[in-house]
């Protein structure tokens, strides 16, 4: 029997270009299955750009193109015959600012499942998803109310719940707690620990304590002299934060930089 590949997704010389400008240069990382991988680095180093390449959200940016390979189970997600809609169905995303749909709490969850052809019991799915996102107890009596009646932290957990509802393999999180207060942030971090039992999580954060607390692996990004971002070090989180190989990583994580 073949050994199961322990990597959920990996990049091979993945570069992201805007017109002639290379925003992210030759990234090689292997994201382990059911682990939390954090991407850290100073502002403008291309963290979000890199993250958005994983579910092909960059397709919507005019002039943006990607070179190199993004491999999921041996399949390059940027090859010509791959439909980005199918990619996004398997790689979910939670954004920096909570962006629930202008619908009821129930419909926020049900909509994604429905467009993805879910045929099972919708009530059950909604309940399970909200429970997985640790939101069920707070909203179970007001499922038909607008999602905009929720607080920011609740909205973000709703966005996580709707992502879970389509059962992706990987969840991308783009600074999911940066718009939230410390208590909501803590809840999101606790939730991530729960979610990694079933999902692979890739999270961008510029909060270093968050990366140190919550992640298993860390990719450190930095811009070079051409203003292109790149991963300068990728390792287990405790190594990155205790004995990094690269001087720049050390300067950054110890707060001597940026």
């Amino acid at each position: 029997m073949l050994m199961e590949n322990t990597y959920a997704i990996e990049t091979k010389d993945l570069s992201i270009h805007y017109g002639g400008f290379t925003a992210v240069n030759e990234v090689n990382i292997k994201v382990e299955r059911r682990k939390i991988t954090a991407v850290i680095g100073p502002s403008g180093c291309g963290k979000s750009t890199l993250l958005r390449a994983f579910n092909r959200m960059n397709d919507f940016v005019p002039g943006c193109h990607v070179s190199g390979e993004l491999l999921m189970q041996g399949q390059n997600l940027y090859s010509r015959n791959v439909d980005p809609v199918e990619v996004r169905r398997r790689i979910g995303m939670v954004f920096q600012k909570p962006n629930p749909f202008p619908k009821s709490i129930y419909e926020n969850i049900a909509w994604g499942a429905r467009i993805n052809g879910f045929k099972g019991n919708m009530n059950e799915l909604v309940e399970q998803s909200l429970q997985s996102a640790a939101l069920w107890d707070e909203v179970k009596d007001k499922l038909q109310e607008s999602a905009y009646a929720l607080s920011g932290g609740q909205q973000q957990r709703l966005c996580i719940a709707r992502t879970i509802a389509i059962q992706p393999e990987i969840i991308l999180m783009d600074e999911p707690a940066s718009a939230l207060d410390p208590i909501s942030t803590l809840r999101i971090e606790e939730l991530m620990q729960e979610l990694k039992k079933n999902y692979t999580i890739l999270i961008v954060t510029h909060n270093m304590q968050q990366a140190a607390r919550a992640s298993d692996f860390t990719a450190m990004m930095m811009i070079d002299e051409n203003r292109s971002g790149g991963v300068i070090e990728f390792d287990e989180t405790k190594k990155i934060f205790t004995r990094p190989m690269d001087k720049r990583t050390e300067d950054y994580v110890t707060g001597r930089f940026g």
Partner: protein
Amino acid sequence: MNQLDLRKKPRPGEALVQALLFLAGILSIFVTIAIVYELGKEAMLFFNDPDVTFAKFFSMTRWQPGIGQYGIIALVSATLVTSAIAILIALPLGLFSAIFLSEYASLRARSVLKPILEILAGIPTVVYGYFALLFVTPILKLFFSGDQLQSYNMLSAGLVMGIMILPLIASMSEDALSAVPRSLREGAYAMGATKLETSVQIVLPAALSGIGAAVIVGISRAVGETMIVAVAAGAGPNFSFNPLDAAETMTGHIARISGGDLSYNTIDYTSLFAIALMLFLVTLVLNLISQRVVNRFRERYE
């Protein structure tokens, strides 16, 4: 001595601008009130005529005040039929164009198409009128046998009126769709939604209040439109809901009658103001209904 001076300093520029803004606001309110007052005053003369009663006004089916026929419905029916046809044409087409322009068209396609659409809005309505009479009606004649379709008819006028308000609805709806935050679209795409699912199920509902406003303005334009119906719909009041018939709308009638020799204080003269008041009411009611509908279905994203 106290150095900290927190007293209000004179700001003459600010006060002046404030006064100008206030005047501009007051002016439009004043004009509106003046119009309603004038309409009401002259219309009162009409309704004060011993022969005119509200019962006759709303129940008779013929309109010819000179010989004691005061059935406003003969004019209202034509306005409703032509406006309904116009909105049936303009709403779907305008909405589809708006979705295309806002969600599908490339930047270059949009920069070419939008100005062209706006040229449509700049064509004088009298040109549209003759376009309806001399181009659209002959084409429609091909589809109807014999004299089913009259030479002047509400169908052709309504269709062309729909084309006239299409750019308005398309342009306003496009603005409403474009104003929906990008984060909502991204959220939908990230769920594995296709472009169509995102546009129709997420962006469109979020833009509904703006689209509703477009429809309200469109309806008002159609109800108030004069030249197209005066030229192409017919020149005589006719209580009929059959779009193939000739009939005269409220606006068309006012335009025709007031154009001729008309002496003051005759029943023909004052009746025009009654029609105008009715027109005002119809527009008001339609606006209220559309607002209700929009509030019922809108989805807030603020």
